[in-house]
């Protein structure tokens, strides 16, 4: 029997193969086919998502660089720019959690570096299956250790993230990593190969047989048994080498030695050359013989598509080459001139003078096929919506429900995770893990950047439009709780198989929701990443939009902390509705993921956030904590635990107690105010048209919820802090 044609083995459809032939007017050779297969893979080309991504707002007064570059850039004033981007590394992490996650950090850091910024912070939104399964404990342990090892070694603090659990992630963990960098506005570089005759210089690690076909094989197909063959495409990260790469590249940029800079990620040299050439509308002449190899027996197509880590491609004028070599030598990095910028728009690869591949740069980078795939609302939704947990009767006492929710893995403290990360290095972490948003000081000024990553898979599952909108709103709310002004968004869209109409429908709805929220909150999208095929035969992950929100804080000294102090007045901002659909309460107490997620009134959301910002600016807030997973009860408990100060509150409204305490109605926050500032604060709230309820007062070791029940801060802390360590007690499984 005949075995399948090469292009199919490489992941290209027959139609795509014909399109290649058409572009070239001839049959591609093996190397050329490998280049197209990699560049036209879902991961590199966004062929299924592009059409939808276009509807995201990308313009705004603060945006310096939007989607299309390696990372987004916003202006933070004083001649400084904030660079940020989020990316997914779920597929490799599913089969080798430590290295999969570690190399994910390496990749996103190089994206930020390639814009010319010093990486200053990392965040890691993670999703796993339940921890009672050894496999999931192994995944969590490996991923966290991998992120820690890489981030800690390169001296970039990991200051935030998320860890959430759902059965749908047992076979498909979600590993997203976000990196932020700072750079002087005028030092920003672009990934453009400007200047015919300039040199392409490959800096960093030698090229080996790493992840050949990694992007096309791993991230563009569902993990089935064949992922055994694709296994060698998981790579080993070298954070030490990355650290040298960071320092050397920043030195070269500072010295003005670079015309352009481009990271090497998916599709390796092929992607870096064709993208940087296409952006500048030029071509590239590449000498494969000049690429430093780890393994001399590598074939052309392997050198062209290898995804070896810790490499950067610099575009350098011939005059500056000696200086570039000197910097690399000082930092112990290898640097090699592997090609030149040409005027003919072709990517041409030679080996010993022989041309082994010649294709138009644009055809690789910009002319991949684009699909508007069939979409259809999942049939199960209707049924799910009818089963609204808000009206199910309450199986346990409110006090027990409180304990169940506070100790639930999604809600409980993630200390076990974030203590494995260096959150202090670089010395600018004003607020780190545990805070609603992380806050990074801009050295030598009172300004700071606040950042939060958020996404609720249950909401996305029950209503992808709301899932997308809530992700944006909650991230912005967390940022606003620090007094910062939310300015821009990056994101990771984690979905199943786009060739299934239900998945594609959820994807489109999610983007519609994100776009709506981003417009309302004036926080344009500057970039992100799409991760499809997060599914195995039996299970797909929830449609999970993870949003990374950046905000600017003018004076970090005025930042409210999410911690109560004694004898303050406690307020609930916003209104509580009977909304238990998709909530933590419904999940852990009723065992239900059903109903509709809480609604979202974006006008209310905007009002709340501007109030929080203004209240911080005029210094009337002592603490602010957003009210989301677990509702009012959890928000109060967290502020109490962080401040080691109890409270006594009356539970507002005529809602049933469990609804009032655990509803996850949006656009709410729990704040505390010094008594003498209460009037001023209430006045401010009225002027912003934000509903507020005076709940009670802070102080003492006890947490008193009306006449319903009471607990102590100490007891709550034991539950909250003890939950994950308890579940991971037998976590010792090694890699």
């Amino acid at each position, binding site marked *: 029997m005949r075995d399948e044609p090469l292009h199919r083995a490489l992941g290209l459809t027959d139609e795509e193969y014909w399109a290649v032939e058409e572009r070239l007017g001839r049959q591609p050779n093996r190397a050329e086919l490998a280049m197209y297969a990699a560049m036209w893979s879902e991961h590199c080309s966004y062929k299924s998502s592009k059409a939808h991504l276009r509807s995201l707002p990308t313009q705004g007064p603060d945006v310096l660089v939007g989607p299309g570059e390696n990372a987004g850039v916003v202006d933070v004033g004083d001649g400084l720019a904030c660079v940020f981007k989020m990316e997914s590394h779920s597929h490799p992490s599913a089969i080798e959690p430590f290295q999969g996650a570690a190399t994910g950090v390496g990749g996103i850091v190089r994206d930020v570096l390639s814009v010319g910024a010093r990486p200053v912070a990392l965040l890691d939104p993670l999703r796993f299956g339940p921890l009672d399964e050894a496999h999931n404990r192994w995944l969590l342990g490996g991923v966290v*250790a991998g992120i*820690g*090892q890489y981030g*800690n*070694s*390169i*001296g970039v603090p990991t200051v935030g993230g998320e860890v959430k659990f759902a059965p749908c992630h047992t076979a498909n963990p979600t590993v997203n990593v976000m990196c932020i960098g700072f750079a002087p506005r005028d030092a920003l570089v672009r990934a453009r190969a400007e200047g015919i005759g300039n040199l392409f210089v490959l800096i960093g690690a030698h090229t080996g047989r790493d992840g050949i076909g990694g992007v096309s094989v791993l991230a563009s197909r569902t993990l089935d048994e064949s992922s055994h063959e694709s296994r060698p495409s998981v790579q080993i990260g*070298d*954070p*030490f*080498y990355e*650290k*040298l790469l960071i320092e050397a590249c920043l030195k070269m940029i500072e010295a003005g030695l670079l015309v352009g800079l481009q990271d090497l990620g998916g599709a390796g040299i092929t992607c870096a050359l064709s993208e940087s050439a296409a952006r500048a509308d030029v071509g590239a002449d590449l000498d494969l013989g000049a690429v430093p190899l780890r393994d001399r027996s590598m074939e052309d197509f392997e050198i062209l598509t290898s995804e070896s880590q810790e490499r950067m491609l610099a575009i350098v004028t011939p005059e500056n080459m000696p200086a570039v070599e000197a910097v690399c030598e000082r*930092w*112990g990095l290898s640097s090699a001139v592997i090609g030149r910028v040409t005027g003919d728009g072709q990517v041409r690869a030679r080996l010993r003078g022989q041309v082994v591949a010649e294709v138009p740069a644009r055809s690789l980078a910009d002319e991949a096929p684009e699909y508007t795939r069939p979409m259809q609302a999942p049939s199960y939704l209707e049924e799910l919506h009818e089963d609204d947990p808000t009206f199910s009767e309450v199986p346990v006492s409110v006090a027990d429900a409180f304990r169940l929710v506070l100790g639930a893995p999604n809600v409980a403290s993630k200390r076990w995770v*974030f*203590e*494995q*990360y*260096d*959150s*202090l*290095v*670089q*010395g*600018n*972490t*004003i607020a780190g893990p545990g805070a609603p948003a992380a806050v990074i*000081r801009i050295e030598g000024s009172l300004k700071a950047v606040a950042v939060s990553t958020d996404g609720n898979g249950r909401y996305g599952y029950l209503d992808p439009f709301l899932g997308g909108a809530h992700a944006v709103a909650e991230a912005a709310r967390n940022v606003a709780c620090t007094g910062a002004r939310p300015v821009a968004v990056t994101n990771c869209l984690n979905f199943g198989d786009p060739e299934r109409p239900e998945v594609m429908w959820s994807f489109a709805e999610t983007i519609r929701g994100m776009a709506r929220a981003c417009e309302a909150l004036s926080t344009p999208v500057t970039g992100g990443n799409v991760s499809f095929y997060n599914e195995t035969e039996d299970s797909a992950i929830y449609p999970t939009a993870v949003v990374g929100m950046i905000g600017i804080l003018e004076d*970090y*000294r005025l930042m409210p902390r999410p911690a109560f102090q004694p004898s303050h007045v406690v307020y609930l901002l916003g209104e509580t509705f009977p909304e238990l659909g998709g909530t933590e309460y419904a999940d852990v107490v009723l065992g239900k993921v059903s109903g509709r997620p809480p609604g979202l009134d974006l006008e209310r959301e905007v009002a709340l956030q501007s109030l929080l910002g203004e209240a911080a600016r005029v210094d009337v807030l002592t603490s602010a904590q957003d009210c989301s997973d677990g509702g009012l009860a959890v928000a109060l408990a967290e502020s109490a635990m962080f401040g080691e100060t109890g409270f006594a509150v009356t539970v507002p409204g005529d809602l049933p107690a469990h609804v009032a305490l655990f509803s996850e109605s949006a656009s709410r926050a729990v704040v505390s105010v010094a008594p003498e500032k209460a009037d001023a604060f209430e006045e401010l709230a009225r002027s912003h048209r934000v509903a507020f309820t005076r709940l009670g007062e802070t102080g003492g070791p006890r947490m008193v919820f009306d006449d319903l029940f009471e607990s102590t801060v100490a007891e709550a802390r034991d539950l909250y802090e003890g939950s994950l360590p308890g579940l991971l007690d037998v976590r010792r499984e090694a890699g």
Partner: protein
Amino acid sequence: MTPRVAVVTFPGSNDDRDALRAVRMFGGEAIPVWHRDRDLHGAEAVLLPGGFSYGDYLRTGAIARFAPVMEAVRDHAATGRPVLGVCNGFQILCEAGLLPGALIRNRGLAFICRRVHVRVETSRTPFTSGIEVGEVLEVPIKHGEGQFVADGETLARIGDEGLVVFRYCSPRGEITDHANPNGSTNNIAGLRNESGNVVGLMPHPEHAVDPDVGPVGGQPLFESLLSSVLAPAS
């Protein structure tokens, strides 16, 4: 005159910039020194910062201790002038034999980033000269390989000659196993050499000087250092 403090950058050093900043905060002149340099640019004191020199490969500090600059550090130490190793710097000093014992993986294996308390056990070092014995300092740790170990004989010598400078303790100063984050023998967080001029510790004093971003338990160390550099104890 302004006291000059050299901060050495090895490939993989991360807290070098923080250390330079801390030295400046306390009125010292911070002098960056490269691992290939063969002298300390005339500095009165030298600080080996934290980080992951050579990626912590093989053993922490195992490769860095061969760096050309280490000869200069050795000579500097031999003449009784102040040498401070923080975290990876401490590990390098142990590997170089300038301090006794060794640092192995934390007892729980995991990297730990956390605020801890340490009790000052001696004032007879340039870094603790201004601190009362028994005083408790709050400082952060962030390491995966900070478990101090040594053979019985060495431990006995450390005890007899009073070489322990810091011990992990409770906020109230009790030396308990609960307060010991990494399993270090006798809660040892920091050590000195016989003549007291070479000190190493796992906690990060340079990350404990600015109240905006952390605790302030590191302040007295830098104050002591800079004043003792100005008025060398005879």
